[in-house]
């Protein structure tokens, strides 16, 4: 799974790079606009260490943010699964909140909380929570009648058991969504860093943008892509391990 993910990323990245080179040489663009392969290699050697640390920094925030988003999504999904007034209120509030672009809300967080770790974390969590929430709400609102019937009619159904049954029956879907939301968590963190933070790969991309240094941006994209590919592969493997342990298959 890991090798497949990394290999897929390499294909996409080098196709993209190849496209840029075709553009550069067909339109005779200068190295200032699109650097030559040797220039990109030089930038890689010069920036690789600093950018790797910055990417790891971003990844750490993204992982914590994603964990936070999964916790929030499950809390809202479990509370909002019921067809009560509170349940529907929570669902509507969660959807309405998502209607605002998080990028538009981010400045409020930076003004209130400054440009440190907490702000980046909240932005990452806010961006990645919605797809997880949609899945959790969908899964938790849909009864698994053929299993739950017995517990309901014999008076044994508790909310914890209901959540356990619905989670178990939709484990594949949940692990896929959680693995997919890793990309959003990373994107959210980078967006936050790009807007106003003082650390992380998004912050480095912002500096590279001000310097109009496409080489640095390409190296940053390479490191971001490979980190996400590895993280997603690890999440998918974790999902397989959990499923195997729980279902015995």
């Amino acid at each position, binding site marked *: 799974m890991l090798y497949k993910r990394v290999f897929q990323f390499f294909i996409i990245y080098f196709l993209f790079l190849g496209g840029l080179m075709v553009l550069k040489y067909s339109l005779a663009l200068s190295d200032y606009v699109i650097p030559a392969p040797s220039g990109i290699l030089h930038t890689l050697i010069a920036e690789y260490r600093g950018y790797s640390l910055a990417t790891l920094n971003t990844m750490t925030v993204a992982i914590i943010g994603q964990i936070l988003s999964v916790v929030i999504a499950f809390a809202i999904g479990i509370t909002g699964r019921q067809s009560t007034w509170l349940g529907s209120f929570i669902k509507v509030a969660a959807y309405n909140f998502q209607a605002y672009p998080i990028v538009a809300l981010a400045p409020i967080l930076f003004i209130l909380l400054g440009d440190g770790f907490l702000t980046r974390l909240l932005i990452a969590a806010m961006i990645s929570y919605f797809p997880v929430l949609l899945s959790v709400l969908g899964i938790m609102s849909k009864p698994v009648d*053929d*299993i739950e*019937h*017995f517990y309901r*009619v*014999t008076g*044994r159904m508790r909310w914890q058991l209901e959540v*356990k*049954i619905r989670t*178990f*029956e939709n484990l594949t879907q949940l692990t896929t969504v959680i693995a997919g939301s890793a990309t959003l968590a990373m994107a959210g963190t980078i967006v936050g860093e790009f807007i106003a933070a003082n650390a992380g790969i998004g912050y480095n991309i912002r500096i590279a943008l001000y310097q109009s240094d496409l080489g640095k941006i390409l190296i940053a994209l390479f490191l971001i892509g490979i980190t996400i590919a590895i993280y997603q592969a690890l999440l998918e493997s974790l999902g397989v391990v959990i499923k195997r342990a*729980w*279902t*015995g298959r």
Partner: protein
Amino acid sequence: MSLLCDNVAFTYPGAKHPLFTDVSFQLTAPGFHSFFGPSGVGKTSLAKIISGEIERSSGRVSTDGPATLLYSHNKERLPGWSGVGRHLTRVIPPSMQAGKDQLVEIFGLSDCITSRFDQLSMGQQNRVNLIRYLLQDCDLLIMDESLANVDERTREKIILAIKAMFPHRYYIYISHNVMEVAKFCDSILVFRSRGKTPQTVMVKGCNIMKSGDFSRNALDTTLLEIMNAV
């Protein structure tokens, strides 16, 4: 306990015509009773009305005194995270645990008690599901095709064992096997084909308590009555 259904009628939400109307019968003795008839005439719906799972019906369903009525069907599954034996131990009340091993043996499930539910055949799954319902504290158990996919000999063994082990309980057995309901049930509520009135007819069954203990003539008579009613 006795069960009374008085002028029960039911229409699916949005349907133009009622599924059934004026269904009336009374069960006054414990044992096996049956709902029999073609598919789609309302056997399951009436069973759900009796157990309280369908509330939008007209007429009266009552018992003389408080009673626990359970409805089970053949599409139920056990959660996939634990083995069959462990699940049964957890969901059967302590007072009924003694009957578990006995039923597992009679139902022919001794070899698969450590397996997970999805590893069992459909017939085994239905038998496991039935065991956990049988070992609940209830006055009436509705078994909707609960022995589907089980071979005839095992079904007979199971029904006779249930009658012997739980003589004071009411059962409503829903099946499409006319021979089975005629042999083992005390009364059979036959749902007639659409357009016939009355929509249901009560037929007296042979109510066999021991294997082979029945009159061929009585069985033939019951079978004829059922087939004429349908």
